């Protein structure tokens, strides 16, 4: 019979077990009667005949059992019995069971949550998008571009069109460039995040608007020719109150009235990790929406602004695709040397996309995975200890079962099944937790402007992985106690004096080993927490080169309100004057960007007299367009030369202020003041040198940077105010003054510069919090484990204690003995932990800012915490030992 058939037969037999027993009995009875009849025929007396017949069978019950073994439920029935028994045991010890299941739920649940986050970010980051497994991000590369990883930069639209025409290995190319607009809500304006997309966007990703339509091919062309937009479901619900007549309504965005032509489906948030898109506009609207650099760029091959994705045809590998695009890029380099020199094209897997937040999340996710795995191991050690403790309490039951004939393997199987029940219940609870926690993924993402929405999904991969963890966990914590229990020495156990039945020794090696492991793992978590905490503090203590206190940051979107350039200038001048008049405002300045905001700076190709660029280098530097007195308001020292004034306007000679690093790099020791720099083809005179500050985050390395007056370049909307007043007061004054100029305008959110800087360290803070939380739990569990072992050892050694005390030991001696045993255990764990930590914190290396992975403060404080916890844990058992009444102990 095949295994499958056998399985089904046994399954069916489960229900008929009584019937099978009686059938076998009946069959054997028939045989006995036949034999008896024959014996009678041979001349025996009926009584004797029957006896003889039965005797021939020998062990009748054994034969019946063998018959049932073959025909009955077999292993399945044994399993069902074990499960029933396990549940009964669970109910009999509710406190213990609850504790064990809770611990396991924590371990398994945190793992499931983190894996669902990983799934959400790495594997399928875009809900509702079709074919993500073949989707790749596409970006340009260039030699000579500052600050971006791997020299990544954006691509130009004509380049992308050429790629699309000449490549054959792709289903489609799409553009998805993040942008924003300001929407007014009552007293305030809010930034809404959206995307500029190519016309094939919705069709390509398989997402179709539930109302209206997507974009059409002609909407890719024409300068601001197609002011149409598709809005998100959420925006339709929240802002337009699910108006059924939404299609055809208009919305002012970035200075132009757009017609709403479609509503995206519910649950679709675009294709940018970490942000929820609220609207989409076609490529033809690029000029209105591209915040990085002004100008119409659709026909400029040298304007690099697009970010996008491609999808491989089925069966095509990344390497093949990369080869094809690189070949086309090379051809373009030769055809268009002025714009494409040194430029290439690179394809990225979705989780390495250079232009969204996926990259920033990876380190945090890595830490999260390590942490939850550690927690799981600690939890398993803890539950294992709990089970050992309980199996010690059940030793009589085990002994009796062995004595009446249970096989050890059956015992082990039963205990393992009980463990499996715990693990299964914990897995169910854990999945529930993971389900609730998937939205917590949002905590890992940088905040500030725009809604964030990125739920991790619990799908079959997460489920499968969680089930695997469940099985592994069971084996880790249930098998060890089971093996221990089955090694009961019957002769010793049946004797009344229990001299340590389960382990047979005073030392409890397995338990001590488990506690050692717990202490070691907790120590590593504590060290990691300490390291990251210090790193964070170092980061936050780093001076960014500009003032953080007493500076407020906000903005007014004049552009979005439809103002033309002249009107913006007038309004800004008016507003400056009015605000300057507010008592308490020291100074203020408008600028295009503020430091440490999430939007990138503009960058420009530069050339300097006397600087020869390398053959394949295209020198490019980031810059900011700022108002007069910017450096003074921001608190950035001006090293020499002058600041911009109100006299630097469109008609006066174009000027620039460079920073130290730029001066050093491009003027090589000579004074740049008075000489010229060519920016995007225009010659500008350098009038000042600013001290190099930090521009994007606290840990960047010094890079070249320069400033140009807003009036001479492009108008910006951010407003920085230097004041000692609190944000609330200033906000009120601001709204008042802005309304006085235009009753329809509202300022954007007003925050302190410190807050803006803090937003860049948010992910580190989250990592630290996570580590600290889990580290605390781990230490607690380790302490509980230590307490358990010490209690056990004390209860085992009651007699010895009694003897010592009778021979003259004082209670404090006993206390000292027990505590030192506990400390010895802890020391062992710490040694193991130290070895582990020293070898593994290297992995944290790139996350630690100006900190060695072996920083003594972190290690030292971790040791102190563990020792304190250990002493607390061993104190109570030690105290109880010291209270032993020697007479009673000896009598037992």
């Amino acid at each position: 019979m095949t295994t499958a058939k056998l399985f089904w037969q046994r399954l069916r037999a489960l229900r008929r077990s009584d019937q099978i027993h009686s059938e076998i009995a009946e069959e054997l009875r028939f045989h006995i009667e036949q034999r008896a009849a024959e014996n009678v025929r041979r001349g025996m007396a009926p009584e004797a005949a029957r006896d003889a017949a039965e005797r021939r069978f020998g062990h009748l019950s054994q034969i019946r059992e063998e018959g049932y073994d073959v025909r009955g439920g077999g292993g399945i029935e044994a399993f069902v019995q074990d499960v029933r028994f396990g549940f009964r045991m669970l109910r009999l010890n509710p406190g213990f069971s609850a504790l064990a299941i809770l611990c396991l739920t924590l371990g398994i649940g945190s793992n499931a949550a983190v894996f669902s986050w990983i799934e959400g970010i790495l594997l399928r980051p875009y809900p509702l998008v079709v074919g993500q497994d073949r989707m790749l991000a596409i970006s340009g590369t260039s030699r000579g571009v500052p600050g971006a990883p791997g020299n990544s930069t954006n691509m130009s639209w004509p380049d992308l069109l050429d790629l699309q025409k000449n490549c054959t290995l792709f289903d489609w190319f799409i553009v998805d460039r993040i942008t924003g607009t300001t929407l007014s809500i009552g007293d305030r304006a809010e930034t809404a995040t959206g995307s500029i997309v190519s016309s094939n966007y919705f069709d390509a990703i398989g997402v179709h608007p539930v109302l209206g339509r997507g974009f059409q091919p002609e909407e890719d062309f024409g300068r601001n020719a197609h002011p149409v937009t598709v809005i998100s479901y959420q925006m339709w619900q929240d802002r337009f109150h699910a108006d059924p007549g939404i299609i055809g309504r208009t919305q002012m965005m970035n200075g132009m009235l757009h017609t709403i032509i479609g509503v995206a489906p519910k649950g679709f948030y675009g294709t940018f990790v970490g942000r929820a898109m609220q609207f989409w506009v076609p490529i033809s609207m690029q000029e209105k929406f591209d915040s990085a650099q002004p100008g119409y760029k659709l026909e400029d091959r040298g304007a690099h602004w697009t970010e996008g994705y491609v999808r491989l045809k089925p069966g095509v590998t990344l390497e093949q695709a990369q080869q094809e695009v690189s070949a086309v890029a090379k051809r373009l380099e030769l055809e268009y040397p002025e714009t494409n020199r040194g430029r290439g094209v690179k394809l990225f897997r979705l989780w390495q996309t250079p232009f969204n937040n996926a990259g920033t999340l990876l380190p945090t996710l890595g830490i999260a995975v390590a942490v939850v795995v550690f927690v799981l191991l600690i939890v398993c050690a803890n539950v294992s200890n709990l089970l050992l403790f309980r199996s010690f309490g059940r030793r009589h039951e085990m002994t009796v079962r062995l004595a009446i004939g249970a096989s050890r393997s059956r015992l082990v199987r039963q205990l393992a099944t009980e463990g499996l029940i715990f693990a299964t219940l914990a897995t169910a609870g854990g999945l529930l937790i993971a389900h609730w926690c998937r939205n917590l993924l949002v905590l890992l993402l940088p905040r500030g402007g725009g809604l964030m929405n990125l739920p991790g999904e619990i799908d079959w991969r997460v489920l499968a992985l969680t089930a695997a963890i469940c099985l592994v966990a069971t084996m880790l914590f249930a098998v060890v106690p089971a093996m221990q229990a089955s090694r009961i020495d019957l002769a010793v156990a049946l004797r009344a004096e229990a001299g340590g039945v389960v382990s047979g020794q005073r030392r409890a090696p397995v338990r001590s080993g488990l506690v050692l492991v717990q202490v070691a793992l907790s120590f590593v978590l504590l060290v990691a927490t300490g390291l990251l905490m210090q790193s964070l503090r170092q980061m936050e203590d780093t001076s960014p080169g500009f003032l953080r206190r007493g500076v407020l940051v906000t903005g007014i979107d004049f552009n979005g309100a439809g103002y033309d350039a002249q009107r913006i200038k007038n309004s800004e001048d008016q507003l400056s004057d009015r605000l300057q008049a507010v008592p308490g405002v020291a100074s203020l300045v408008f600028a295009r960007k503020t430091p440490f905001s999430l939007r990138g700076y503009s960058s420009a190709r530069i050339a300097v007299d006397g600087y020869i660029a390398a053959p394949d280098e295209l020198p490019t530097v980031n810059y900011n367009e700022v108002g007069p007195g910017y450096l003074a308001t921001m608190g950035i020292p001006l090293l020499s030369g002058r600041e911009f004034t109100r006299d630097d306007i469109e008609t006066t000679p174009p000027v620039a202020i460079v920073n130290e690093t730029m001066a050093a790099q491009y003027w090589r020791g000579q004074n740049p003041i008075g000489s010229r720099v060519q920016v995007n083809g225009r010659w500008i005179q350098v009038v000042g040198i600013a001290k190099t500050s930090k521009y994007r985050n606290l840990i960047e390395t010094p890079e070249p940077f320069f400033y140009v007056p807003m009036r001479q370049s492009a108008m910006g909307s951010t407003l920085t105010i230097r004041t000692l007043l609190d944000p609330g007061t200033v906000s009120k004054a601001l709204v008042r003054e802005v309304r006085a100029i235009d009753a329809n305008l509202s300022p954007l959110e007003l925050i302190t510069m410190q807050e803006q800087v803090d937003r860049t360290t948010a992910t580190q803070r989250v990592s630290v919090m996570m580590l600290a939380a889990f580290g605390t739990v781990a230490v607690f569990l380790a302490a509980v484990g230590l307490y358990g072992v010490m209690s056990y050892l004390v209860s085992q050694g009651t007699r010895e204690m009694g003897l010592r005390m009778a021979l003259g030991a004082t209670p404090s001696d006993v206390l000292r003995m027990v505590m030192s045993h506990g400390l010895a255990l802890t020391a062992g764990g710490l040694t193991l932990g130290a070895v582990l930590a020293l070898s593994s914190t290297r992995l944290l290396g790139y996350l630690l800012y100006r900190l060695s992975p072996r920083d003594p403060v972190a290690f030292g404080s971790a040791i102190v915490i563990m020792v304190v916890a250990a002493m607390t844990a061993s104190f109570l058992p030690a105290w109880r030992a010291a209270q032993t009444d020697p007479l009673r102990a000896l009598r037992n």
Partner: protein
Amino acid sequence: MLLLEVKREKARVGNMPELPQGTFDMLVLKALSLGPMHGFGIGQRIQQLANDMLQVEEGTLYPALYRIESRGWINSAWGLSENNRRARFYRLTRSGRRQLAVERSEWEHVSLVINKVLQAT
């Protein structure tokens, strides 16, 4: 193989050496190849076929029957015995018939080889 399958019980034989388990199973299959029969009858049949030179122990027979049934070489069902009593009848299946042929040829081959070795001078 057959002679190497030394498990717990062996069939007892009057004056002859013990039969290994596998060989006994073969005899059961052979007995059933002559027609379906209940357990008691199978024992009788084997003894008859062996001219009473073999005694079948109940303690061997039933475990063997159950074991062979679990391998699918025989079926069992309730039926009426000669004296109208309810008894469990066993029947050879098609795969059982094949198994019998296989074991039989193996047995013949082995005994041939052994005899050859023993007859050497």
